């Protein structure tokens, strides 16, 4: 790790101020991706601003049909929260599948979404549930937020405060773990929203990061059944291929995970 200046922000205002003060400053949420990156000397921020003590970024509650999750909520909190388990059990389950116990006790929802790893779990959920991302500057709709691998709509100086999860009728996530890393090789989240519309978010497989599988959404909107998914296939051309799996396999897995998620909902 290169030498850097560690700063612990005590409030959102302070975090914003510190972030604006140094051009090479970087925010740290749970650090589960950032710290290994720093240790491998793949990043060299001049200042690291730790958000762990920022009270405004915490808390989980349901208000007016929306599950509000503070950006610094740890995966473990999401997984074990009685509020989440009642409001969106599929999301609690998704959190329980992230990383391992140590990661879940440090990693945060805001950190994951800000990093937008193409194989992270939450992006599939955010897309499927049509989540609104609230920052210190504005509100961003899920569909506008993800902009390719590790790329988001977040601008300089922008900090995620909370995520607004509209309560769905039901939702579920199914994940095929990468055999080495445990990240999603393919993960599919299906949500049937309050207005009856169906959204399908996919992570791990896309060559441009998480995406909505609109073909499956249309089919499920017509008939919310396993039969509706039959014969549907993600185009392998749009999928990642690497040492571990060719694009065809990932494309196939998206469909299998969709069926397995749907089975949980029927």
């Amino acid at each position, binding site marked *: 790790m290169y030498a850097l200046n560690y700063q612990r922000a005590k409030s959102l205002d302070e975090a914003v101020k510190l972030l604006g003060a140094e051009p090479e400053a970087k925010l740290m949420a749970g650090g589960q991706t950032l710290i290994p990156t720093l240790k491998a000397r793949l990043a060299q921020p001049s200042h690291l601003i730790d958000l762990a003590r920022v009270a405004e970024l915490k808390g989980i509650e349901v208000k007016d049909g929306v599950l509000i999750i503070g950006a610094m909520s740890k995966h473990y909190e999401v997984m074990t929260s009685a509020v989440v388990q009642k409001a969106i059990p599929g999301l609690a389950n998704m959190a329980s599948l992230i990383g391992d116990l140590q990661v879940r006790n440090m990693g945060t929802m805001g950190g994951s979404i800000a990093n937008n790893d193409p194989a992270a779990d939450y992006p599939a959920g955010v897309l499927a549930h049509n989540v609104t991302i609230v920052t210190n500057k504005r509100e961003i709709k899920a569909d506008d937020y993800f902009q390719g691998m590790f790329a988001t709509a977040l601008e300089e100086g922008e900090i995620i405060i909370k995520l607004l999860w509209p309560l769905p009728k039901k939702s579920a996530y199914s994940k095929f773990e990468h055999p*080495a890393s445990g990240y999603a090789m393919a993960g599919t989240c299906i949500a049937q929203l309050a207005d009856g519309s169906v959204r399908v978010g996919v992570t791990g497989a896309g060559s441009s990061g998480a995406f909505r599988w609109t073909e499956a959404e249309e089919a499920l909107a017509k008939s919310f059944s396993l039969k509706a998914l039959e014969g549907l296939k993600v185009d392998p051309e749009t999928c990642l291929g690497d040492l571990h799996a060719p694009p065809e*396999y990932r494309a196939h897995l998206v469909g299998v995970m969709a069926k397995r998620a749907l089975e949980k909902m029927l």
Partner: protein
Amino acid sequence: MQPSRREDLRLIQGTGHYTADWNQPGQLYGYVLRSPEAHADIVSLNVEPARAFPGVVKVMTFADVEAAGFKSLVGGVAPNVKGVGDSAMKKPFYPVLADKKVQYVGQAVAYVIAETAAIAQDASEAIEIEYSQLPPTVTVEDSLADGAPQLHADIPGNVGFVYERGDAAAVDEQFKRAKYTSKIHLESQRLIVNPMEPRACLAVYHADEDRYTLYSSSQGIVNMRNQVSTVTGIPQAKLEIIADDVGGSFGIRSTPYPEYMVSLLAAKQLGKPIKWVGTRTDSFLSDYHGRALELNGEIAIDENGRFLAFRWDDRVDLGGYAGGNGAFIGTNNLTITCGGVYDVAALYARTRLIYTNTTPISAYRGAGRPDIAFAIERLVDQACHDHGLDPVETRRKNFVKAAQMPYKTPLGTTYDCGDFAAVMDDALAQADWAGFAGRKAASEKAGKLRGIGFATFLEASGGGNTPSDQTAARFDAKGDVTIYCAAGASGQGHETTFISLFAKELGITEDGIGYRASDSNMAVVGNGTGGSRTLLGQGSSFKLLAQKVIEKATPHAAEALGVTADAVSYAGGSFSAGGKSVGLRELAKKLASAAAAHPFDCGAEGTFGVTFPNGCHVAEVEFDPVTGVAEIASYAAVDDLGNVMQPTLVLGQVHGGVVQGAGQVFGEHAVYDRESGQFLTASFMDYTMPRAATVPLAMKWRGHAVPTKTNLLGAKGVGESGCSGSLPALMNAVMNALRPMGIDNMQMPITAAKVWQALQASEGGAAVRKAA
């Protein structure tokens, strides 16, 4: 709750002494700059900018180790081992720091020493190196191809050695008369060994005595000291090596690494201790890798199903240099038991040892023996399938029978004992072999593909390279005793085992008995831990040592009891004669004096032969054809390990070996990019380690002891049998499940993606997909 091993309390409370736990006042820190290139000339190397870095004390390159007269790192076959046509092995000079050329990604190029580890690493980035890239070759196939890149100017074609063993003509004869033949091509892929403790060292020079201390993990002192001395020229007598706790070794901690040598040199030159602690990345790149063998086997069978001969043509990837034990694995270990448990008329094996632009290979849990056991049992299984022979009865028919022991193989190896049929029957019964059809039908109903496989294997364990295993006992002023040997534990529980063995042999309690391994101040020699031999070698020596203590003590007991020595008898920790008795401990305490050596102090030694642990492992594997995911549905093993001293530790060894085998079968694979020679699996993000859930919780095991007479304990090696049994058993189960789909052979690792792709391409797969 008391832990079951003496070591555990210390280790789980964090009070053990791993290498990085040692520190010395005033120590400096080293950082190794490694090659980012697979194959390149070093056009220029300028370390001045790093030297000028604040806090940097020294930067070392090849020039420094050359000036110090360092020799090549040690590797290759022993000088008396000749290849085809009486040829000697072509072994390039393996410099401690790269000289003019780099041969693999991760090769040590420069060593920066600074006041802190962070400064040393920062400064290393200021080193200016210009590399001129050369085309790399990272597979034996590419190294052997026409026009392949040449690694070493004096080794045209990249072939280091062609070795053969057995009688080629006799094998040809058997193949001519054979009714059936089968052949198989198998790869035992390159693995990362990944001990829990990354490599580290602390080197100290004692100027007043012109003496060195090296703290580093090791499997035993003799090899380490010998090789460090050979490379650096430091006399062995001036080199103390300390390794208290070692967090896993598996073969790759048996020989020294470049950092140890340069740290010793710097410690002397700077007059300060030098500490180096490697990262996990250093381990991935520069710990010796394991396996990397290609096995091509053929079997000849007569009209009655009797095996006539095996023929092997194997290719061994040495890596960029001959280091560690790579060449020994590729010659001796691959061939010594290449007929397995079978009574055949003729055997022949040829192996070619090839250089590639990859990290050099050394021993990994079994070091070639699991690989050949795997190959034999895969070939036998394939032959049974090819010719419609029953796999159980065919094996039974061809076993070396218990009545044939001792049995000399066509290669001259003598198996001293074993009852392979009994072991197989025991294992098949435990696994409910007969009930498989029912389980397969149940799996089919659930849409799964189930296969069963087994392996009846044997391996040679216990061969060592030092002439004998010595042990010693030293009594202190309290009459307490410390016992010593040369082998170093890396998790095996030697402390528990040997103290218990010594105490039982003397009929005394374990209190007041201490154990020290690899203590340079004790002049005990002996083999390092390796080849599953420590119990049968050093354990036997400890048994002798206990008898020596009794012999030493007897005259003193006689004096204390007022009788002649021949009147004294020893039992249950006490000497007695004529109704009087005196305890060994009591006597030891009485005779202790601070001024002189204790009269009971003594040493023992013995030479103990190779043993042939064998077993039958049975596995069932179930595939989900929709995703290709495999699950080990059941695992049941029976091993003939001779007499078992510590059942819990033995079970742990079997479990560990099976898990490592399962890791190789289903996930682990060290992969280099064929074009660039870059190492693609340099972290746990890309390198698939087995997890606890890889194997079933209800793994069944039992021992079936046929004690050996080749050592005093009747014990056979256990450390590696788990790998030797699980590789073929699991792969035979995999193929049993996949063959009906029209898949004939598949190379490890059997990943879900690979299985799914194979099913996509196969006719059977198409049928399954339709049904699903």
